[in-house]
């Protein structure tokens, strides 16, 4: 019952976001035919982000703005300028491409964000999308906290996880975890991978997911592995992904997977 309730509130907030963005489409074009670089563009971006309601999903109650949130079975990942748990490796262009097509060289949108992209951000003008990119890139990087150390390769979960990854994941996401631009998401420096609560990872591995189809039409899908891997195996491979290639995040437990089935 609790799950259903939270799902309903997500739906309501998404609808609001979609309406908000739809109203803002071509905002920049209306404001200025030739948006200038720098402060003006960033200000346009801030206006779009604020009225588009991005914070509604990407900011948790009481947490710093855009530092990420959990919505039911999906993460609304951190949008901060953090190279590990945020968009630190993305350029403003990457952000704009993601908003307009759902795909870029790092990520492919699925779940609630796919719906947002289909319904509103894919209709943003290039200038508006660029402005949002510029604004998000202008946000200060979070204060460097104590950096978590990755689990050692000798950890039994890491060892098993590496085998699972090689056998089942590398054919698409590659041994180096980089994925393929516009097709398979990168697992390196990804806020979805690094999120404190890895709900998207668990959900997508269990049930599969389809990325959004736009002008970048591919809409590749992630196969479901829930019928093929045990909860422990799913936990192990996710633990490996969250602690490889520079990633460092808490291990995933079999109990977390069991709860998400």
């Amino acid at each position, binding site marked *: 019952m609790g799950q259903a309730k939270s799902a309903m509130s997500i739906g309501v907030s998404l*609808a609001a976001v979609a309406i908000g963005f739809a109203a803002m489409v071509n905002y920049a074009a209306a404001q200025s035919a030739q948006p200038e670089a720098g402060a003006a563009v960033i200000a346009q971006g801030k206006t779009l982000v604020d009225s588009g309601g991005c914070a509604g999903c990407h900011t948790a109650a009481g947490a710093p703005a855009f530092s990420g949130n959990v919505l039911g079975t999906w993460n609304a990942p951190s949008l901060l300028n953090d190279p590990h748990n945020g968009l630190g490796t993305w350029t403003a262009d990457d952000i704009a491409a993601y908003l307009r097509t759902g795909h870029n060289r790092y990520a492919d949108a699925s779940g609630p964000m796919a719906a947002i992209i289909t319904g509103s951000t894919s209709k943003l003008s290039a200038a508006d999308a660029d402005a949002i990119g510029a604004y998000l890139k202008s946000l200060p990087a979070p204060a460097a906290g104590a950096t978590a150390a990755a689990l050692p390769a000798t950890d039994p979960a890491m060892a*098993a996880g590496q085998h*699972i990854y090689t056998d089942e994941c590398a054919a698409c996401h590659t*041994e180096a975890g980089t994925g393929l631009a516009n097709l398979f998401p990168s697992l390196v420096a990804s806020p979805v991978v690094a999120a404190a609560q890895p709900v998207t990872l668990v959900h997508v591995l269990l049930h*599969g997911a389809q990325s959004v189809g736009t002008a970048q039409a591919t809409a590749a899908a992630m196969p*479901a592995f829930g019928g093929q891997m045990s909860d422990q*195996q799913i936990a192990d491979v996710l633990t490996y992904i969250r602690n490889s290639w520079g990633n460092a995040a808490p291990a995933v437990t079999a109990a977390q997977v069991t709860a998400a*089935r």
Partner: protein
Amino acid sequence: MVGHILSRRHLLSSAALIAALYSSSASAAAISGQLPWQPDTNAMPPQVKPGTWAYFTPDEAAAVEALADRLIPADELSPGGKDVGVAAYIDAQLAGDFGKDTGLYMQPPFADGLPGQGFQSALTPAARYRKSIAALNDYCRKAYLGKVFADIPAADQDQIISKMEAGTLSLGGPNSKAFFQLVWQNTKEGFFADPIYGGNRGMAGWKMIGFPGARYDYRDWVEKHNQPYPLPPVGMADHPDWKSHV
């Protein structure tokens, strides 16, 4: 699962962003608006487990195990056909679509035809095993003092198999050469198919020849000509290295 379905359904309807997956056009399955996609698809084939026979009688199973063990005898290269589960594999196949000729064109009239016109039998593989094993055991009982094929010495079994292969063994009704070809094809399948189907236990067939099994990415090895591939085989459900907790 319930939460998953609800959240997805609600998401789609409340945001009203995506057209219905399946529009209805009479009772035909019409697909439009977007690529159809469903969660939780792609189940693996069910794992065939040894223990009980789905099609064979115990006598038939014994005969097939004996045949498999002579066709693929145990030696330093691999365990024998019986121990790798060839009979379990064939049993499951005969109980399933293969045994029933599901999907093949089985409309009469049946005629022998020319060899080049291919298989023309009205008998299913399951029926051919049943009749042929019965005939083979009848033959053995007459020739070997009441013993069935499974109970005669290996050298005699080999001789009988050679005669079947050549088509010189008379089994009364069933064609011994055709039966040999069927058993040998199915035995190879039971030795080399994914272990999920009940044979190739321990991936013994794959290990014998150095086939890495259900792997999917050799990009790093394409141009490493003449170098042995380093990873052991894996099956769809056979992953000895996946265990973090014993």
